[in-house]
């Protein structure tokens, strides 16, 4: 049997091949640092420092990072802190963003364009510029070194993006569906729960994932406001930098461990996100 062609009409095989190679090349360049870190994490420190591979690969560095010297930040503490900060902040962001998106997309409030702009305008400010006032108030309210200050900041930082994203996903919900629900007698809360959310679910999953990724990886505020018990994963990764001896392999292992949860979350969310947006809703 003849195989079906993959080429589009009028498309040349060489052009298709060229584009394919280019796509792979770009992808490989992007994955290279990650692959390099992964490989390094399995090496001995000597091999890692010398960029060689004489002593074979092992999981040794991964067991090293498990036990920290007493008095320094442990993986368990940092992981728990990160988990709490990320989950609590993302949850609150969604709880605030969903009604805001409803007010901006489904029933636009007066001057909704301005509201939308105010939200995003907070992103124009360089992070460094905000640290001084934040520090002053955090100290005044005794929040330095706590998870609470990070939760508050991550909510503040993620909320504009979350509002913008959920708004655009809410806009995709067919107008007639909302009207049908209105005529069918739903309250606003029920409309959101039974009609809008199920359709916007993939988009909301994507939004939540972005908030999680940002909060998980945030380093600047965490470093400035939280050098002690409330420290998060990025600081723990850096704590593996040693002043004595080689540490590259151990640092690589720590980096891999730190990014694993986000990669797994992304992989799990991807299936949900790809699912069609509103198939069957309209004609």
């Amino acid at each position, binding site marked *: 049997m003849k195989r079906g062609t993959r080429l589009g009409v009028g498309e040349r095989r060489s052009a298709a091949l060229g584009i394919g190679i280019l796509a792979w090349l770009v992808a490989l360049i992007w994955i290279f640092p990650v692959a390099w870190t992964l490989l390094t994490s399995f090496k001995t420190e000597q091999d890692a420092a010398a960029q060689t591979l004489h002593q074979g690969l092992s999981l040794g560095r991964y067991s090293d990072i498990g036990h920290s010297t007493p008095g320094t930040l442990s993986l368990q503490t940092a992981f728990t802190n990160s988990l709490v900060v990320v989950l609590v902040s993302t949850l609150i962001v969604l709880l605030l963003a969903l009604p805001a998106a409803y007010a901006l997309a489904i029933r636009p409030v007066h001057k909704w364009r301005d509201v939308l702009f105010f939200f995003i305008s907070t992103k124009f400010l360089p992070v460094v510029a905000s640290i001084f006032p934040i520090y002053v108030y955090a100290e005044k309210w005794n929040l330095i070194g706590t998870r609470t200050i990070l939760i508050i900041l991550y909510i503040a930082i993620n909320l504009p993006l979350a509002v913008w994203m959920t708004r655009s996903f809410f806009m995709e919900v067919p107008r007639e569906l909302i*009207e049908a629900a209105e005529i*069918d007698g739903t309250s606003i809360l029920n409309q959101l729960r039974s009609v809008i959310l199920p359709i916007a679910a993939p988009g909301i999953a994507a939004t939540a994932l972005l908030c999680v990724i940002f909060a998980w990886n945030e380093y600047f505020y965490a470093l400035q406001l939280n050098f002690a018990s409330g420290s998060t994963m990025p600081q723990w990764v850096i704590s593996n930098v040693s002043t004595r001896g080689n540490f590259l392999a151990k640092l690589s292992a720590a980096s891999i461990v730190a990014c694993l949860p986000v990669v797994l979350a992304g992989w799990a969310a991807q299936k949900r996100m790809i699912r069609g947006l*509103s198939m069957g809703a309209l*004609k």
Partner: protein
Amino acid sequence: MASVQYQDATRLYPGTTKPAVNKLELSIDDGELLVLVGPSGSGKSTALRMLAGLEPLDDGRILIGGKDVSQVAPRARDIAMVFQNYALYPNLDVAQNMGFALKQQGVPKDERARRVKEVAQLLDLEPYLDRKPRNLSGGQRQRVAMGRAIVRHPQVYLMDEPLSNLDAKLRVQTRAELVELQMRLAVTTVYVTHDQVEAMTMGHRVAVLRDGDLQQVDPPSKLYHEPANVFVAGFIGSPAMNMLSVSVDHAVEIAGTQIRIGGLDGGGRGTLGFRPETVVIGAEGPIPARIRLVEDLGSEVFVHLVVDHEGEEHRIVAKVEPPFGGKVDENVRLTLRGTVHLFDAAEARRATVTL
């Protein structure tokens, strides 16, 4: 079940100067199927959405069952609507879609299931109750949308071009089913369509709208035989009524032939309208014409003709019984036999005579 009254109902969209619906006065009887028809932009959908409560009123009021609902939210109006795109909830199956409104009203689960089943039987939807909308054909989706409205036993059904997404054959079939269903349920129904054939076949009465203004409300046959103005005359009927601009002086002259119309005062210009079936083609007759095109539909034949009227070529259409032997470019003679209408300069109908 209830009657519906539009009283002076007006909707002006923000940022526009001309109302989408202008001082609409319309009374719909209990159990009546009223069709709102008009070209796109005529305000028919807006009028329906005003009744649904999806569009606010800028003036006037709307009564359902004698009660002013102008300020009442859609959910409290006790109406059900069938949308052009059906607007089925994609995440719910057929049974859940049909029972959705009942669930919102707090109807107990058993009764909900019973009522959904009853309607599903009525609409032949029983085998599909646990399917999601995306796994249904267009016709099935349309029936689910109908079912969702019927289950509720509302005071009024609102239908916004519910058949326009079906293919031609299914549309004709569903049209008849819908008329029977409405007769059986006897629920007041307001039906919006741009299709004059749907309007004529379904409506107990038909309201013709144009640019937000109501032109005429009458039973289909009256609309056809006694159109209020040039617009209604041209909109209702296919092929459209033939229209010729004429001088009125106790008689009118078409293509050089005088036609006496009794009771006409002299003076001014007007429009003479006659339907395709009034044009008789033969070897004899007062009006000379040439055949441009012959459309043979089997059951009837539409003959497109050119007449020389007031020094200009005008196209008119004749509807004749088959078989028709005439050929393109053949010269023939025409006689008008039947009803002709005369409209004044303001396009209102002034006289109707039978020749």
